[in-house]
């Protein structure tokens, strides 16, 4: 061995010239390593592959001309972004290559941004400065953000866009869920504009719960809320039998009666068994409340709670009191005060009380509460943070009950504890935590939600958008959310409108629901007499609509109060009521309008003027439009419907003044057959 080494040494370094030659050679070879590495680099390999691919295409010359060899880079100094992705993804802007299925040669799909201005990693994450596939796409020791999986891409839109976007349904859903499922009741989320995200789930106060329900029901509900209602947003806290027993004991013991709650209704329910169902239908309860039908489908709105098993929950006196006037129990409820008479209350209450489920409470047997149980229950109620969502007398709402999520989207991976077998990425961590919070540690308080996979993806998307960049972006680079309107109608009529919960369905001045038409300019739009008649007996304007305005049993004084307020206050500055007369149009102009309606503009595709010939189901029926709308409104609407009601689907036809006037003349002459006959009498 030693001899071998010696002969080797002599052979290469025997004399100085030989040694010099060998050393130079080694030096040269080592110098060549860097250029060789560059020559055999991945990006060069892809660029060669691209050139080979485009060679045989008909537009080869154009593609060749667009192609730039070498490392390519997009630099956005404002955001401190350097992206070299286009070194391999060479055809990002070649629209003619849409038929290519292999990456990295696909062109980028159309998006509202220019690739040169936004680069790649702003939306897709990954390491932009890297020039190898694995370093750019995967997380490394030096760079822990891998490429964002495609299902979360919309989170990147949310970093700058705080408003609702048509192209990001997943992000929109996730953001709505953070509020709708009360996530932000426990986790605070500070938005970049300085506000804090508010929940929209409106959990009921528990201070008077003994009026409403029994301890047995509370126990069953605490054990498994979804067993009572599949759509319940309250999560499952996985309580032990004893804990649920003690919490229910405390909640009942802690409850005080509602002041001013009157006794039971003296009237008896209608003997007709179908009367309750038809009153439920006529009052359009299903617009807000869902019921599970025989096929197991949950049918109805989700503004109010599901009523499938309501009879197993509420006490009869409470239900009657609530139906009589829900605002006595909850001043902020979304439910209107229907002004039912005693017989109606009894009928409706009887109908709802029959919706029971004998299985729900059959196995619940709890002994009367002991003092220890109540004390223990109180401790549990504050430990589980119940007061973060519910108002509970004697328990303060905890300020910061759960970790703040303002910058959860850029939480360092080194700070996360992963489960075994789980991919070590932030999206996987967030999704895993939402899917099964207690899997991370048995002592955690976060409850178990029953979200679908798609819902978890949406929530994860919304949470990933809450990150370092989104909270530190300079304001000129962001698209703010539209300012939140807290509009409330004023005065006596305003009080009446709050009582009727008009804003639960209608939007006015940017505040309210979207189930029913926007009423911001209602005063410019309709005639007073029509409004009065409609408030007294709402009849449908759209034949195909299933959600309609319910009847509120208003007194004449109340109707007038409302009509006066709407006619005076909800006036559009763009519509001058006196600019167009309500009648007196020449017959020739009316005829011209009729022709335009049926021929040039073919309005009968969506509207009905003559019930014998027209069938259009999309817009409102216009048989009596002349008694409903003002001429000035019709004219302005013809000219530009979106200016009066943004987002309406009536197309803007860019009508000439003459056409608009003729159509107004024709429409205002449609007073309705019934009305004309009534007028003759």
């Amino acid at each position: 061995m030693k001899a071998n080494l010696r002969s080797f040494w002599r052979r290469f370094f025997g004399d100085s010239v030989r040694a010099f030659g060998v050393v130079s050679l080694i030096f040269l070879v080592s110098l060549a390593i860097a250029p060789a590495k560059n020559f055999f680099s991945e990006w060069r390999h892809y660029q060669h592959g691209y050139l080979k691919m485009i060679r045989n295409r008909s537009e080869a010359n154009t593609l060749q001309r667009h192609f730039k060899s070498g490392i390519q880079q997009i630099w956005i100094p404002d955001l401190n972004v350097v992206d070299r992705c286009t070194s391999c993804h060479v055809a990002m802007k070649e629209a003619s290559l849409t038929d290519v299925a292999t990456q990295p040669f696909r062109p980028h799909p159309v998006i509202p941004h220019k690739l040169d201005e936004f680069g790649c990693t702003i939306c897709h994450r990954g390491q932009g400065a890297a020039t190898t596939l694995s370093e750019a796409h995967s997380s490394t020791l030096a760079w822990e953000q891998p490429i964002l999986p495609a299902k979360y891409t919309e989170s990147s839109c949310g970093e700058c866009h705080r408003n609702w976007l048509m192209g990001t349904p997943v992000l929109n859903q996730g953001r709505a869920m953070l509020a709708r499922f009360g996530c932000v009741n426990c986790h605070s989320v500070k938005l970049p504009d300085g506000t804090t995200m508010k929940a929209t789930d409106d959990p009921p106060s528990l201070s008077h719960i003994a009026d409403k329900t029994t301890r047995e029901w509370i126990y069953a509900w605490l054990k498994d809320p979804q067993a009572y209602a599949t759509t319940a947003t309250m999560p499952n806290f996985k309580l032990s039998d004893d804990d649920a027993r003690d919490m229910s004991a405390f909640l009942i013991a802690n409850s005080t009666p509602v002041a001013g709650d009157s006794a039971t209704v003296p009237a008896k329910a209608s003997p007709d068994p179908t009367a309750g169902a038809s009153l439920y239908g006529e009052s359009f309860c299903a617009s807000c409340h869902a019921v599970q039908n025989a096929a197991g489908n949950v049918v109805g709105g989700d503004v109010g709670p599901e009523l499938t098993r309501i009879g197993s929950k509420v006490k009869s006196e409470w239900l009657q009191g609530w139906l009589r006037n829900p605002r006595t129990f909850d001043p902020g409820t979304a439910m209107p005060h229907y002004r039912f008479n005693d017989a109606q209350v009894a009928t409706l209450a009887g109908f709802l009380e029959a919706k029971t489920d004998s299985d729900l409470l059959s196995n619940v047997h709890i002994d009367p509460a002991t003092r220890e149980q109540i004390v223990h229950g109180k401790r549990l109620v504050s430990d589980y943070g119940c007061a973060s969502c519910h108002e509970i007398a004697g328990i303060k709402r905890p300020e910061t009950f759960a970790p703040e999520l303002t910058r959860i989207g850029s939480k360092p991976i080194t700070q996360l504890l992963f489960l075994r077998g789980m991919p070590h990425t932030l999206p996987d961590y967030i999704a895993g935590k939402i899917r099964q919070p207690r899997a991370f540690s048995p002592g955690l308080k976060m409850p178990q939600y029953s979200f679908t996979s798609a819902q978890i993806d949406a929530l994860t998307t919304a949470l990933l958008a809450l990150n370092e960049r989104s909270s530190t972006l300079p304001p000129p680079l962001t698209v703010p959310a539209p300012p939140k309107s807290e509009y409330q109608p004023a005065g006596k009529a305003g009080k009446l409108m709050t009582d009727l919960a008009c804003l639960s369905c209608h939007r006015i001045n940017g505040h309210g629901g979207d189930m029913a038409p926007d009423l911001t300019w209602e005063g410019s739009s309709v005639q007073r007499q029509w409004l009065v008649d409609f408030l007294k007996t709402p009849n449908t304007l759209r034949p195909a609509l299933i959600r309609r305005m319910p009847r509120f049993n208003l007194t004449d004084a109340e109707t007038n109060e409302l009509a006066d307020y709407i006619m005076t206050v909800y006036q559009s500055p763009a519509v001058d009521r006196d600019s167009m007369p309500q009648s007196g149009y020449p017959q020739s102009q009316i005829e011209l309008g009729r022709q335009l309606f049926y021929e040039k503009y073919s309005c009968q595709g969506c509207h009905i003027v003559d019930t014998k010939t027209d069938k259009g189901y999309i817009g409102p029926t216009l048989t009596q439009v002349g008694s409903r709308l003002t001429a000035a409104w019709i004219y302005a609407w013809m000219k530009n419907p979106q200016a009066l009601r943004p987002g309406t689907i009536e197309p803007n036809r860019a009508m000439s003044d003459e056409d608009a006037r003729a159509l107004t003349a024709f429409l205002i002459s449609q007073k309705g057959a019934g009305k004309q006959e009534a007028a003759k009498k």
Partner: protein
Amino acid sequence: MIRNSTSMAALLTVFLTASLATSCSRKNASVTLPKPATFGAAIVESSGGKQMAQTGSLLPQPVIVQVNDEQGNGIPGALVQFEAAPGVSFDPAYGLTDSSGQFTTNVSLGGMAGRYQLTAFTFDKSHKRIELNLQEIALGYQQTVGRRLNDQYCDRCHNPESTVERVSNYDNLEVKPHAFAEGDTLNKISDADLTAIITHGGPALNRSALMPPWGNTLSKADIEALIAYIRSVSDPPSRAAGPIYGKD
């Protein structure tokens, strides 16, 4: 000394081969398919084909396939496997059929917008592979915008199907509009003509005035998005919508 180093080298070699062997065997052992109890004669779709989802996302409904015997009855215990282009994931990707002969899987589509071909396969008694191909549609940004615009502005007339929430206006129209999935008709109309008819209404192409002009209501980008959506749902597929991503 020398003996020592040779033994060291030998030890090192043994260690290296051992670790190599384990790493290789681990790779091979990654998939252990369940043993099928029965073998079918055909594999058919029960539900879940031709769904739409955004790129990378879960299809709204699971894909359900059924393995049948010669008489066309579902058979339990047959092995079903799914494969598709890279980026598509199945949960689960293989398994045995249930008591009614069905196998259910949840599918997430790949990151590129377009059509994805899913292949479900099983083996018959002679161990011949029998396949079923399904297509699903992944919507990119533009198609997503187009889909929403379609739901808002177009669907009530262009979709003859009614739902509880929304009654179709199709039957009320004297001249019937084309459903957007009617590939045979719509694939023949160029993007320029579709743009013209949406922007300026039916009369622009000598068609019915019941199709109103949307050029003053929708932006140019909106109309492009609508066309991208129409092309992506077309049946048979429109060539302009791009390739079909399948197993390589």
